[in-house]
């Protein structure tokens, strides 16, 4: 068995770029308070985040940090996440429109990236591979857009999805397939959120049902839709 030598892309430029963007963004609070918040272990995105944050013990260096709890709870991004992104992202595959959106909305860009990563992993788990123009392609777009919708507003999610398609030489029919499945993913996520039933498993089952029912657009169908698996 040939053992492949793994070489990993480490786009240092992106590390600097993302770090610079995040640090220079007005939405990111001072480093001292970031460290204070990070050490506390309070979770961003929970309904009690601001209360928990306000209760974090402070010292001379962080005595005014609790005044920034609303900002920290809304916008804080773990540095480990940034480091992970810098490690994973092949910066050459970002379109100019995507780069522009990352600069404008860095925190949402991180959420968009994490949603994409989850969608890729989900596609690998269900389909085995990530291919093009087949059912796995439709599923990947549905999942990415649906998972992103849960994290950010529809319009912003759509902006990231459209930026991913813009400025490339992808054939029009293929781009239309992607956009149609993106739209379905956002709609399905919105419906699940409205019903209070949103989770990744339910979204995955919606995607597979959509493929079986012919609701998702597939240019080169293989005719095979796998069953959901954990």
């Amino acid at each position, binding site marked *: 068995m*040939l053992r*492949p*030598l*793994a*070489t*990993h*892309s*480490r786009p240092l430029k992106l590390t600097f770029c993302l770090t610079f963007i995040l640090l220079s963004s007005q939405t990111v609070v001072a480093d001292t308070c970031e460290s204070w918040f990070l050490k506390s272990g309070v979770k961003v995105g929970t309904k009690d985040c601001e209360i928990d944050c306000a209760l974090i013990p402070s010292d001379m260096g962080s005595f005014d940090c609790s005044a920034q709890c609303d900002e920290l709870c809304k916008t804080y991004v773990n540095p480990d996440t940034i480091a992970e992104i810098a*490690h*994973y992202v*092949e910066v*050459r*595959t*970002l*379109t*100019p429109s995507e780069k522009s959106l990352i600069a404008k909305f860095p925190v949402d860009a991180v959420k968009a990236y994490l949603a994409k990563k989850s969608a890729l992993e989900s596609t*690998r788990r269900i389909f*085995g*591979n*990530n*291919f*093009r*123009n087949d059912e*796995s*392609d439709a599923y*990947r777009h549905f999942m990415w857009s649906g998972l992103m919708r849960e994290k950010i507003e529809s319009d912003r999610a759509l902006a990231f999805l459209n930026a*991913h*398609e813009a*400025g*490339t*030489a*992808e054939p029009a029919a*293929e*781009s239309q397939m*992607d956009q149609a499945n993106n739209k379905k993913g956002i709609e399905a996520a919105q419906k699940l959120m409205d019903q209070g039933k949103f989770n990744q498993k339910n979204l995955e089952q919606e995607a597979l049902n959509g493929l079986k029912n012919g609701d998702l657009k597939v240019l080169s169908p293989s005719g095979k839709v796998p069953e959901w698996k954990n």
Partner: protein
Amino acid sequence: MEKLKRITIWPACLVGIFIAGLSMAQPGETYMTVAQAQKKFGKTAFDAAKFKAGDRKTKGEMAADLVLKKTFVGKPLKSVTELLGSPDGYFENDAVPAYVISADVTRKDTWQIIFLPDKDWKKVDEVKIHKNCCN
């Protein structure tokens, strides 16, 4: 004094090797070198017409040569699909040309050849052999 130096240098080296090992083991995308591709898929000389008409096995046999000779590097990105046909693989963006080169994609060891664009998405910047599934 010499003995003390020896005692401190060796543990330091071992720690260094351990840290280097850890950094090598970090997760990320997996790529194959030309030598590994030659061994796994073959060394057939690249021929655009045969690549386009060929199945995944045929494409795999030419992959190492395609990377080694940098045939497409610096050429327009759209020339890839014009000469090699419709891509069937996927890497990061649907517009990145990617061709599956593993004959049996039902195994959890699927490889593809990818053509990375330059920052303007006009020309081919690099050609690599990437593991589509699974890390």
